[in-house]
């Protein structure tokens, strides 16, 4: 049972990160996030620099809210938007983990290439460096 619960949690976490990435895939939404990274702001303030209707900007804001990237608070008649940094940290962690993984894999791939090709192409100094990765 705990395994099923763990799997559900992992799935909802994955869906959450997906929603964040989908939200970040749009330049207007990235610009909104950039604006809010300098401090919270009213919806109208956020919309101001964009050459589009308030309605169009509001749609972007709703996507960002749904993904959990930004939050809305009502203060009287004003709607104040702010960034929820933890959601971005989660996405950032995923990117960093994957980048690190592939950099390491490609290092290993290049080591194997050197090992496979050392007799054909490479000089003695490469040969010595590759000895520890001898074939199994």
């Amino acid at each position, binding site marked *: 049972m705990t395994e099923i619960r763990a799997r559900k949690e*992992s799935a909802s976490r*994955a869906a959450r990160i997906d*929603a964040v990435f*989908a939200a*970040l895939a749009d330049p207007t939404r990235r610009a909104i996030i950039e604006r809010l990274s300098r401090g919270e702001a009213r919806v109208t303030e956020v919309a101001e620099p964009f050459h589009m209707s308030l309605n169009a900007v509001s749609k972007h804001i*709703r996507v960002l809210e749904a993904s959990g990237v930004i939050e809305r608070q009502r203060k009287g008649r004003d709607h104040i938007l702010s960034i929820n940094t933890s959601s971005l940290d989660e996405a950032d962690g995923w*990117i960093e983990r994957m980048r690190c993984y592939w950099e390491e894999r490609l290092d290993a791939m290049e080591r194997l*290439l050197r090992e496979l090709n050392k007799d054909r192409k490479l000089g003695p100094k490469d040969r010595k460096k590759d000895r520890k990765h001898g074939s*199994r």
Partner: protein
Amino acid sequence: MVRDDTTGPIVQIRRRVKARAEQIFDLWTQPDLMARWMSPYPGAVDCKASCDLRPGGAFSLVMSSGESSRVVSGSYVEIDRPRKLVFTWMGPLTNNVNTLVTVELNPRGDETDLVLTHERLPTQAIHEGHTRGWAHILDHLAAAISNDV
């Protein structure tokens, strides 16, 4: 390139590799060679690879060390030796959600420019929860790609 079913490129790595594209392509697609570099667990680990190299064909890497074992699996989407390989990919690192990996190999004389792109495929929740925003996201995906999110 814009695909209509991803949440955008997440990781992109470029490298100039001192080998011919054909040889690099084989490293990615021949089980005995895959087993020699794809496992992220150095030493002690027994890595077994298998693959059915055709579009829609499956591959898997089973890495075992002592009692624990990890499986990375996926299926081939596009196979164009030696220029391009596209496959789906899931494993512990992706929280067992499906992702998409594209490996492009551009020959530069005796060397090769390798471009690896790793994207997330949207889970069902995105389709259900963001159907309206979705079409708009896709319109801008090309811009997102050039900005290297």
